[in-house]
């Protein structure tokens, strides 16, 4: 009996005493966090303990690598339009997140990344699992914090979620030393936060919209370019209304796909390095280019000397630093894309007065120079395989990809008719992104079909996350467009390095069907057109997860293409 009586007060003290970690968990509950992607370790033990003890209904997704956790959080954030939350330990746990943080920074995805840090009394001594995560992440975060006292935790968490999800979204890191999360916390700062240095402009200056309206009225060759900003700003519906009212043709960046319906007669297809002939020529010839929420990335613009050189450029962006960064802008509009589109809808009464010839020219181009691919009777091309997925699902799916040939083909042949259905690593171009991102998408949208279209190279970078599919029975469909090569590298070596295929042909691979089997997941290898055509419908509608090893022809290249350094009007591989 005696030991129990001495144990009793200890226990009750522990129950009433909040640690820094408990304060953190409470702050996350206040932010209505539902899902955390993470991986435990020494410096976050107190936080994992607090999660264990918490009665809140958090869903913690244990990935099998921190990189998987952060890419899953990116996918989650992209389709849910709210911050993805990641939790990892200090040192290697934190550094394994770096690729994902940089990826989220480039593609403006809201993340709150919580990392453990060694205890404050050993900070700076090269302690076990210590890495200067503030130093490492400063250039790749929208903002980062190292918690100095548990008193600050509620305020910092509030600020972090606010900063991550407002203005131009981005990743925010909160680094928490182990002693701060472990020790009791007696008092916390519950005051509302105040960020005098962070006041993002949300609404446009009405005068600038008026100017844009006047330019639009005079334009003979107007063109709208949509970027991911339209999706972040929730402006798709307003955009469609405006475009249809004034009959303005629309092109898109890679990340903007889905902002405007891909099957709409006024949509010209994606622009840029692997964009459609119609879109790239429209940018070259237009006299008014209205960029809504795109950042004029070099893969879109090609050589800037030849980019939209006849056009008056209007640029709507929530981040003022993007305006005028790469392309000279005549009508700058600092605003959330959704808010700017609403203001346009309110103000603009008349559209272009004389642009029928332009529309006819573009329609002619669209019919005369469509996307094309080789379609031999034997064997599958990856483009054909993507098209069949599109047909089998009726386009009703969220699609994720890595970077490379399969990404471009998915962008070209899967027509995104609704927003937030396309999740790809654009700016950073991260291999291994697509599959874990699909896990995040499926968790965010359990009712949707989620398809990860990946290459054999990228999939092998994060395939350990098959465990998560198995564990959670997530019905993600993974389609490996397997050409036994790093396709885009191979393509560039063919085109620009006289076919010296240095380290890009990878014939040694695991048996993907057996791999799937070892995770108790259905795996299918398909080598012929006939089998693919017969099975793809059933596979896409299968109730559980599926891994499809689709063997596609290695020698296919992505066309059309703007060779590096050239203007976007200078394309190769355009066929009438």
């Amino acid at each position, binding site marked *: 009996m005696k030991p129990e009586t001495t144990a009793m007060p200890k226990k009750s003290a522990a129950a009433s005493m909040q640690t820094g970690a408990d304060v953190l968990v409470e702050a996350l509950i206040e932010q209505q966090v539902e899902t955390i992607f993470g991986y435990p370790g020494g410096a976050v033990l107190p936080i994992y303990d607090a999660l264990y003890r918490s009665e809140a209904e958090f869903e913690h997704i244990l990935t099998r690598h921190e990189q998987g956790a952060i890419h899953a959080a990116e996918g989650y954030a992209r389709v849910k339009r709210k911050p993805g939350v990641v939790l990892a330990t200090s040192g290697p746990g934190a550094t394994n997140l770096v690729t994902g943080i940089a990826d989220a920074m480039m593609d403006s995805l809201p993340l709150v990344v919580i990392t453990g840090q060694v205890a404050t009394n050993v900070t700076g001594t090269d302690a076990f699992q210590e890495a200067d995560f503030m130093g490492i992440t400063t250039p790749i975060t929208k903002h980062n914090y190292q918690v100095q006292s548990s008193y600050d935790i509620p305020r910092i968490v509030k600020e972090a979620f606010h900063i991550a999800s407002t203005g131009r979204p981005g990743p925010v890191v909160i680094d928490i030393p182990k002693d701060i999360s472990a020790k009791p916390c007696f008092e916390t700062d519950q005051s509302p936060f105040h960020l005098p240095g962070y006041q993002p402009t949300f609404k446009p200056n009405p005068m600038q919209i008026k100017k844009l309206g006047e330019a639009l009225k005079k334009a003979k060759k107007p063109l709208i370019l949509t970027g991911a900003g339209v999706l972040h700003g929730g402006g798709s519906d307003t955009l469609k209304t405006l475009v249809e009212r004034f009959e303005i043709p629309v092109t898109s960046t890679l990340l903007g796909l889905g902002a405007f319906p891909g099957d709409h007669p006024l949509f010209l297809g994606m622009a840029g390095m692997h964009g459609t002939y119609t879109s790239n020529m429209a940018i070259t010839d237009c006299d008014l280019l209205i960029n809504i929420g795109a950042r004029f990335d070099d893969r879109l613009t090609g050589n800037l000397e030849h980019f939209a050189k006849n056009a008056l450029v209007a640029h709507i962006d929530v981040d003022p630093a993007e305006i*005028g960064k790469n392309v000279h802008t005549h009508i700058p509009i600092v605003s959330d894309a959704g808010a700017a589109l609403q203001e346009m809808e309110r103000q603009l009464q008349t559209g272009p007065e004389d642009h029928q010839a332009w529309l006819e020219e573009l329609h002619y181009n669209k019919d005369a120079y469509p996307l094309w691919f080789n379609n031999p009777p034997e064997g599958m091309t990856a483009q054909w395989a993507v098209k069949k997925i599109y047909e089998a699902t009726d386009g009703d799916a969220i699609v994720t990809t890595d970077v490379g040939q399969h990404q471009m083909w998915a962008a070209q042949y899967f027509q995104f008719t609704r927003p937030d259905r396309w999740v790809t690593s654009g700016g950073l171009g991260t291999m291994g992104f697509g599959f874990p991102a699909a896990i995040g998408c499926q968790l965010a949208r359990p009712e949707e079909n989620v398809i990860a279209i990946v290459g054999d190279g990228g999939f092998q970078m994060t395939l350990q996350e098959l465990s998560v599919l198995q564990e959670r029975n997530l019905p993600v469909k993974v389609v490996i467009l397997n050409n036994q090569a790093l396709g885009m590298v191979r393509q560039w070596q063919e085109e620009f390095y006289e076919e010296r295929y240095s380290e890009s042909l990878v014939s040694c691979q695991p048996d993907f069907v057996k791999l799937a089997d070892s995770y108790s997941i259905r795996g299918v290898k398909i080598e012929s057109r006939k089998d693919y055509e017969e099975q793809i419908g059933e596979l896409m509608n299968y109730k559980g997860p599926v891994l499809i090893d689709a063997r596609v022809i290695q020698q296919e290249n992505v066309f059309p293409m703007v060779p590096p350094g050239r203007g976007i009007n200078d394309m190769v591989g355009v066929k009438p």
Partner: protein
Amino acid sequence: MKRIITLVVQNRSGVLNRVTGLMHKRQFNIESISVGRTEQEGISKMTFVVDVEDHRKLEQLTKQLNKQIDVLKVTDLSEKAIVARELALIKIVSNAGVRNEVQGIIEPFRASVIDVSKDSLSVQVTGKPEKIEALIDLLRPYGIKETARTGLTAFSRGSQPQSAELTQYSLLK
């Protein structure tokens, strides 16, 4: 072109790292930095002299600086009428024989001797960078043992002249 840029920042850990990292990433050459507290608690002021290629790059730099959460205000002082000063400490070789001579040199610069030892003498001077350069040049023949400079710190004058007259007040034009 050289620009003087001042930042009003929240005095939080990592803010200097964020600002200098940003300049490094965009390949701006930092000529000098000076940082200090202001009259408001928790607010610091940084003065940068940077070498910028052209106006587009400059615009990009100020916009990127403005984006930082802890940066409250960015001002490009280069084309304003400003007061700008730097402080330098110069230690030269000197014995009793040359002390008077040195005194004569530094006097027109309104510099002062702040430390004397058997074989050295330390001078403190305040002014624009050119003035400091000039004094260092004059002292060089005596043998300079060590110099330490604070970097430029600056703010705009109480009243700004019409823009047409600006050049004569501006430091860098």
